[in-house]
Every structure is written in structure tokens, then in C-alpha cells.
């Protein structure tokens, strides 16, 4: 499977994530789109780790491994980030009763 397919797929996902981030105002949806973007990146990384594994399989048995470990850490970190993020969003909801990311723009100019 040529890597290009994976690149285009993850690029598309990434773009959809960004569009989602730009369009949706709801903080939760916002985070979902971020998750999509992160998943796109993870997919790309796994594809590249397999690519490097295929290229250097002869020399080093565990060639592309650090790509996959990086994906593992990304997933783990994303979980932590989301948990704190949602805590803040709940706090926002409790103070302002709305989840619109742009609701508060008192901090102007």
C-alpha cells in the first residue's frame, strides 16, 4: 500500500478536523475535532513507522518502533489533555451557562 494513500487520507482527516475547529462554536465539538486531527496524525505516524520498518527491516529488527510508541504516548497525552480541557469547559458552563467558545470576549483589545 503506497504511503501516499495514507498521507492523503490523514491530510483529509486533518483538514476536516481544522474545518470543524473553525466552524463549530461549541467547545465540546471543538474538542472532538481536535481529537480527529490527533487521530489523523496518529494514523500518519503508524503508516510512516511501518514504512521505515519495511525499509530498514534488514538492519534493525525494531526499525520503526519509536513511531508507534510516539503514537501510544500521543493517545495517552490526548486523554489527559481532554480530561483537563473538559474540566475547564464544565467550569465555564457553570459560570456562564453556555459553551460557546467565543462567548466571553470581554478580554478585548
Amino acid at each position, binding site marked *: 500500500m503506497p504511503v501516499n494513500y495514507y498521507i492523503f487520507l490523514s491530510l483529509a482527516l486533518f483538514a476536516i478536523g481544522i474545518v470543524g475547529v473553525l466552524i463549530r462554536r461549541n467547545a465540546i465539538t471543538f474538542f472532538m475535532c481536535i481529537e480527529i486531527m490527533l487521530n489523523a496524525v496518529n494514523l500518519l505516524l503508524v503508516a510512516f513507522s511501518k514504512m521505515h520498518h519495511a525499509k530498514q527491516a534488514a538492519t534493525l529488527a525494531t526499525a520503526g518502533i519509536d513511531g508507534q510508541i510516539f503514537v501510544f504516548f500521543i493517545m495517552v497525552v490526548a486523554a489527559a489533555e481532554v480530561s483537563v480541557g473538559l474540566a475547564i469547559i464544565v467550569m465555564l458552563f457553570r459560570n456562564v451557562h453556555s459553551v460557546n*467558545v467565543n462567548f466571553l470576549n470581554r478580554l478585548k483589545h
Partner: protein
Amino acid sequence: MQNALQLVWLIPFFPLIGFLINGLFRKQLSKSLIALTGCGTILVSFILSVWVFLQVKNGNSDVAEYFNFISAGSFKVPFAFQVDALSSLFLLIITGIGFIIHVYSTSYMKDETGEHYGRYFSYLNLFVFSMLLLVMGANYVIMYLGWEGVALCSYLLIGYWFKNTEYSKAANKAFIMNRVGDFAFLLALFWIVSKTGSVSFDVVFSKASALGTSDVTIITLLLFIGATAKSAQIPLYTWLPDAMAGPTPVSALIHAATMVNAGIYMVTRSKALYSLAPLSQDVIAITGLATAILAATIAMKQNDIKKVLAYSTVSQLGYIFLALGVGAYTAGIFHVMTHAFFKALLFLAAGSVIHAMGGEQDIRRMGGMKGKLKITYITFLVGCLAISGIPPFSGFFSKDAILLSAYEHNKILYVVALFGALLTAYYMFRLLFLTFNGSFRGTEEQQHHLHESPAAMTIPLIILAVLSFAGGFAGIPDIFLKGGDAIAEFLSPVLPPEGGKTVSHSTELILMLLTTVLVLAVIVLAWFRFRKYKPEEEKGLGKFLKNKWYVDELYEKIIINPLDRFGAFLSNVFDRSVVDGLVNIVGRLVNYGSRQVRLLQSGQVTSYVLLMVLSMLLIMAVQFFLRK
């Protein structure tokens, strides 16, 4: 033992101390104490100069180096004094005449308030200090230091009575013209440094021969322009007559004896350069002669006693420059010495006349003072005789030497110079007869106020009279007394005598007789002309000469007015609209800009993310499409 001359720094040191004491404590000190310190310091340095003169006489000359005045990388300017025949002679003139004038001015300035009295003497001491610095400097920079100091003091002293705007304007004029000269001097200095890499005389002169003739000519011409400003020659002389605004002893000291000789000293000191540049020597000769003639003609028609003397100084300096131009340096220096004597004498005598007349300076309202001011009259007479070159007096010997060397150089020069000498005799005796002979034309009240000046003024007059009389014997030419030319012999180590005299003794004798006879004739003519004198309006040529050939008005039109107008234009038109405008616009622009840019800060998170994505786009675009 280290050469005794190392102590030569004491000479300028004492006037400096005098300046500081008088300057700082002028309010506290009493007038007599001020006079004492003022004159005392000059006396001490005079004694030291005599000692130096004796040392130099028996062949001991030296360059005393003290510390590094300026050291920038390889270029080094030592603070050094050069003591040789030329500088020791000048030392004598400056300190000697300086001391006499200091004594004279103690009484002349008696009616000044204590504080101003102190100020006057501190300026005088400072002047003597900077003049000594100029003369003793072993390199151009120290000389320039003195050069500037002297110009400053002349400005301060001319504008001594600063309340009178006329006098301060004259002081400005003097200072600005000197600045023009100094500017040329500075250019020459830079040129020398760039070409020879050093400013000390010995190094510069040794390398001078290696320089291209064009370089040397430019340097010498620039130096000469500096000299013309300082010694009041053709283009830059108009400040000297106006400088008479200062007190008379000041005019005597600065504008007769010492400062005006600075230019001559500098040209003589850089003799090595000038001998390599025949063109500039001719320029000097011609300028000198032209100035002499011009000043003499103007002096004939002047009615202010000091103005006449001022113009006569200008013309005598013209003669000296003529001598330098034709290469007769020793004759030039000799005339400098004698001129210092009788010109100081004339000025001081004029001072005592003005003192007697209660400040009146216009000779048309004087006359018939022979009886009242006996000593002043006699000394004034001696001065006139000396300046016109009557045989036994010093003027005769020095002027004759110049005429002789002019004759050798070029016949025409001699003829014009002779005509100049006759003019000198004419206006000097006109002055003499108008002030002292004939009937008194002043007011009644001035009439009975006339009295002889006190001793403190008359004694200096007498001393100077004796000097003017005896001064000539220092340089008796060979035809009278074999080996009599003491001054030439004294100066020989510094100024080796130029080639042998081409003129035989007989022609020399004839020339001398010719000049003396003509001068006597002119004096008799003047006697008849001015014995019974009635002031009447000048017409035609006389009016033209009276108005100083309208030179001042000429300068006014050519230089000063356009400059004023340009300055005015610059200040209000250009500065106000363009520069201020520009600054305000920038200020307003920046403020306006920052207000607009702040709108970007909308507080909306999505717009932040949008900007992030767009900038991402921009970076990618720059990365790829730029590379193609």
C-alpha cells in the same frame, strides 16, 4: 645633567598661574594685588626668557618633550617645546614688551572697578600664556593650541567693554575672521598628518622634500591663509581696524607687538616647506606688498588716531610678508622685532594722548598738544622717525634690509615697496602734526583737562623709545660695520642666510641714500600740508580712501547678507514645515496604525485559530512557491 632647557616649561607656567589667580579671585583681591600678580608673573617669565636667550646664544638648543598630548594608535602628538634661536627671540619680544604693557595698563585701567580690573589682567595673562605656547610649540598641534588661545583672548579683550554693542560686534568680527583662518590652518594640519604621518616640525620638515610639489604648495598656501587671518593680510584684514575697540594697551600688546606676528612666526618656522614651494612664496610676496600699499593709502585718510596706527600695522606686516615672500627671513624677523618696539611705543603714546583727551580719539579735534604732553610728544616723534626709516633709528635698518632683498629679488617689487615706505612716512607725520602741532581744536573743557600721563605710563614710553632707537643696531649691515649683523648671526642656526648678496656695496649705499632723501622730502611736504590744518570734507579719491575702499561694505554684500538670508530661510521655511511636519506625521501614523492593528485582537478564539491556520498557509506558501 639633563639639558637645562627642560625647565623651559616654567615660562608659560607663570602666566597661567597669573591667569588662574586673577581669574578666580578677582573679586577678593585688591586692585594693587591684581596688578602685582599680573605684572609679576610676566616679569618672572621675562627673566627666564633672558636666561634661555643666553643659553641659546652659546649654542644650546633643544626640544623638551614632556608627555603625550594625543596618542591614537601609531599617531602620536607629544606635548613638547622647541627652544632655538627663533623661538627664544620671540620669547624675548613677547615677555619683554608684554611686561612693559602690563605696567602701562596698571595705570591706564586704574578707573575700572576691582572685579573688571581682575578680569582684564587674567585675560592678558592668558593671552601671554597662549602666545608663549604658540611660539614654543615643537609641533603644529601645540602651535595650533596657542593659535586658538590667542584668538580667544583677542576676542575677550576686544570685547572687554562688552556693554557697548559696537565693541562686542567688533570682537565677533575679529573672532569669526580668525576662525576662517584657523579653519585653513586646520586643513593644512590634517593634510600634513595624512601626508607625513606626524606633526612635529623636525619629522615634517625632514619628510617635506619627499612630498609632491602640489602637496607642499597646497599645504603652504593653506598655512598662509591661516597666517593672513592672524596677521591681518589682504583678504582677512578688516577685523584689525575694528579691533581698536579694545583698550589701547590691548591694541598695543596684541594688535601690534605679539599676536599679529604669530602668522609671520608660523611662516618662518615652516621655512623648509615654503622653500620647496616657490609659487606660494610669490603669492606671499605679492599679497604682502598689496596689503602694504592698500593699508598705507587707507591710513592716509583716517581720522581716528588708533585706526591710523592699525592700518600702519597692517601695512608694516605687509612689508614683513614681502620679506618672507622674497626669502629674506632674517630681514623679516628683524623688522618684526623693530616693528614691535616702535608700534608698541606709538600705540602707548596714542593711549596717553587719549587718556589726556579723556577718551577722545578723533585727531581732527586734537592738535597743539606739543606743549602740554612733552614726553608723549618726544616719544611719539621717535616712533614716527623709526617707522619711516630715518637712518639712526631701528626702522631704517630693518626696512632697508627688506627693500634691499626686494631689490635683489625683483626690481618692480623694490619700486612699489619704496612708494609704500614713502606713504608710511607721509601718514605717520600727518598724524604727528595733526595731533601735536597746530592749534588745539578740542573743546574748552578738554583744553584745560590736558595733562601729562602719570609716571607708570611715561616710563614704559621712554623705555620703548630707547628700544626703538637702539633696536636697529642689532642688525647693522656689513657696509657700515663688518660682522655687525648680530641678529642674522644669532638666527643663523635656524635660518641659514640665503645666497650671497648679489648687490655690490656701492649700489646698496646708493639705495639707502635714495630712500632716506625721499623720506625726508615727504616729511617736509607733510609739514607744510598739515601745519595749519582746517578740517574739510573729503572729495573724490580722498572720500574713497576714507571709506576704506568700501571693503567692509563689499564683504557685507558678498558674504554676510546671503548667509543671513539663507540662514533665515533654513530656520523658518525648511525647519518648521518639513522637519517638524515629518516628525508629527510619523507620530500620528504610528498611533493610528496601532489603533487599527488592535482591532485584529477581537477576543474571539475562532478568529485566533483562523489566523493561525492562515499563517500556516502563508508559511507553506513561502516554503514551496518561493522555492520554485
